[in-house]
């Protein structure tokens, strides 16, 4: 995975330079792109951090780039920088899942705050992603029977009840339970519930 960076996409060189200067003053690492097209060309899934996107650019606009990224299932948080007349577009972008937007001229440190927050969120999301990927891998190891039993355990039912419902022997339920715990890497039903709740909430 690449280093998390604040990716700045702006056609105005001075603006890019100023943002680099600003973000560096808060120890945020940056990468800059002079146009939406150049960023899109370089984009790949492993780019992490956040995207600072000027809405109004010649050629491909910020919004168009955002649409392209969504089409590619990019989850990188996007902060839009808008001019005076572009608020409705920015709001529309926000509804589509943009992280935030700031209207020029903006309070620079709040921009940095939002950037840091976005990068943190991206990081968290990525770690959660890793976790849920792991759980998914583990769950994939469960047999259909075990998955069934697991659902009943998560419903908070005792082994006896499970055995009755499934019309299997109590002993068999216990074996399944032990296997499930082993495969999912938990020691108790509570742990299991917490692990799976984490994924669900996300």
């Amino acid at each position, binding site marked *: 995975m690449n280093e998390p960076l604040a990716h700045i996409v702006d056609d105005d*060189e001075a*603006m890019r330079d*100023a943002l680099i*200067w600003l973000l*560096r003053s808060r120890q945020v690492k940056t990468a800059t792109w002079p146009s939406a097209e150049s960023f899109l060309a370089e984009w790949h899934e492993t780019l992490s951090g956040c995207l600072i996107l000027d809405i109004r650019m010649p*050629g491909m606009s910020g919004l168009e780039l955002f649409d392209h990224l969504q089409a590619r299932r990019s989850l990188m948080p996007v902060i839009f920088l808008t001019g005076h007349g572009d608020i409705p577009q920015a709001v529309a972008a926000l509804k589509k899942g943009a992280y935030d937007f700031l209207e020029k001229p903006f309070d620079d440190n709040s921009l940095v705050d939002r950037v840091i927050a976005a990068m943190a969120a991206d990081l968290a999301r990525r770690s959660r992603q890793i976790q849920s990927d792991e759980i998914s891998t583990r769950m994939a190891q469960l047999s259909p029977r075990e998955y069934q039993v697991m659902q009943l355990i998560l419903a908070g039912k005792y082994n006896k009840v499970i055995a009755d419902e499934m019309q299997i022997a109590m002993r068999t339920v216990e074996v399944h339970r032990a296997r499930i715990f082993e495969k999912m890497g938990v020691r108790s039903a509570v742990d299991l519930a917490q692990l799976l709740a984490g994924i669900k909430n996300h």
Partner: protein
Amino acid sequence: MEGMLDSKHSMRSSLPLAAIPAASGWMWWLPRTALAIFLISLTSLLWISWRTDMEDQRTTLISDMLWLEQEIRFHLTRNEERIQQLSIDLAHANKDFRAFTPSASSLLSNQSGLRQILWLDKSGALRAALPTSTTDAVAVGEATPAIPMTETLRLARALLKPTYSPTYAIVHGDAQFEVHVPQFSNGHYDGMIVATYSIRRILDELVPWWLAERYSISIADDGGVLGKKSLVTAVNSQMSYQIAFDPPGHGLLLRAEAYELKTSLARNLLILTAVVLAVTMLWSLWALRRHMQWRLVAEQALRKEYAFRTAMEDSLATGLLARDLDGRIMYVNPAFCRMVGYSAAEIVSQESPAFFQDQTGKDNNLEKLNLISDTATPPSGYETQLRHKDGRAVQCMLHAAPLIDGDGKHFGWLSSVLDITENKRIEEIARQQEEKLQFTARLVAMGEMASSLAHELNQPLAAISSYSTGCLNRIEQAGLQQADLVEALQKIGKQAHRAGAVIRRIYEFVRRSEPHQVSCNMGEIISDAAGLFDGEARKTNVEIRVKLAEALPKIQGDRVLLEQVLVNLIKNGIEAMQTTPAEKRVLEILATYSATAGDQQLCVAVSDCGSGIAENDLDKIFLPFFTTKSEGMGMGLNICRSIIESHYGRLWHEPKPGGGSIFKLTLPIRSKLST
């Protein structure tokens, strides 16, 4: 001619064509009755005249006959006396035969109607006769008497006075009678002289020719006509008169038959004339009636036509005005009256009515009107201004045409006057709307421009803000290198200048209406404009080539506006090449200078290798609100052209051979500030 039109006008105003009273009734029966009376009187006159004529003729006839009868009788009596004288003479001559012949001969020869004279002696034997033998004196008929008639001889002897015998026919269709005159000798009967009268001879010799010309005179007895004298053969007359013819007696009648009334030529001519005149009168009356009917029909048609024309004139929205050659107004139609608010009576006959004076009262349009009338009317008409009664101005279009009367004589001018005030007003409104639209377009353009400029302004401001915040952050963290700070502050300063330039541009743009004309170097303007696109060009892989002719002269103009034009054209060019293969993306700006006699100009061509402009759109690209771009307002080229035209130049488009567009602009070079 003037009067004619005047009367026409007055006719018009007094409703001339009120219904004419029906032409039947007394107007027709009076002449008819008169005609009947005339004919009756004429006939009566002719009849009475004819009657009078007949009466006259009859009277004449009777008197003529009386005269003739008397004449004949007188003649017979005279002959009697002469025979008595002869007998006396013979007695004196002692009955000498030689004395008889000369005397008898003189008797016979003297138009006496006598045929023969016989001298008988006492016993009745013939002593002498003259002519001696008469072969024709042979009695014919049943009761052929002896000659001389013994009856009469005896009677005369007995009476001893002249006695007439009855008439008896003789040969050759003649008839005769005798007169026996006794001869006395010494108081005793001594013989008889018998004279025979031929009826034919009596008629021939005793009836005068003039009488025979007028009448057919005949002598008749009970047995029929004995002799007739007539100079005209065909006699056919109702008018006749007969009278007893005595003393011959014995039922002789003298009859006259008038010839066909020989009416006088003059009278006949008069009658003929009267009849012809009557016929002529009848014919003329009929012709008159026909003419009247025709006139009535014509009048009806005329009235209809007149009503139609009046309605037409009245309904016309175009004012009509007729003037005589002196410029006096003879006629106006209601539309004209409405147009100027005066009544027809107020206008007509005025030489220079008030409405022909324009608002200031100084200028007399009538004179102008006459002027064009006297020469020739321009086919497009003549625009002028009239004054309404209430004082407002009436814009109108005048057309004049000569008025020619029936004899081809030019007697005035007819002008049609079209009120174009409303058109003018609409034109004015349209012009104002156009101006408003232009203004709106400019506002819209300004809005777009402002929006774009605001974005441009935001960029340096945001950058400045970011630089300064970055600096502050570093200062707080005490991690600020002096060199870094210097660099940041320099950058801040640069961005502040950039912002300032943008604001100046906005200001200049808003003040566009009053271009700030200065002497400027087109080369610099082009370089600056192209410079603005350095980043953009790099980003879009467009190569901008600027080719400036050497020693370009300076031009008078607004630098900012001209730069705006170039920026616009360059931007369009770059955008047009989005789909062009990267290696072909070349934007060329070529500035040249040309000088022809008295005309120096600078030409700038901005050519791209883009997709060009669709043929359909060619004539629209300079119109406001026309755009091929999804986000454009369509004001760019329109504004560019306005700017160039405000510099007295031209901006146009040419297709570039091999694809793409060339926008060319020319600007005139004026040696000195002409403002």
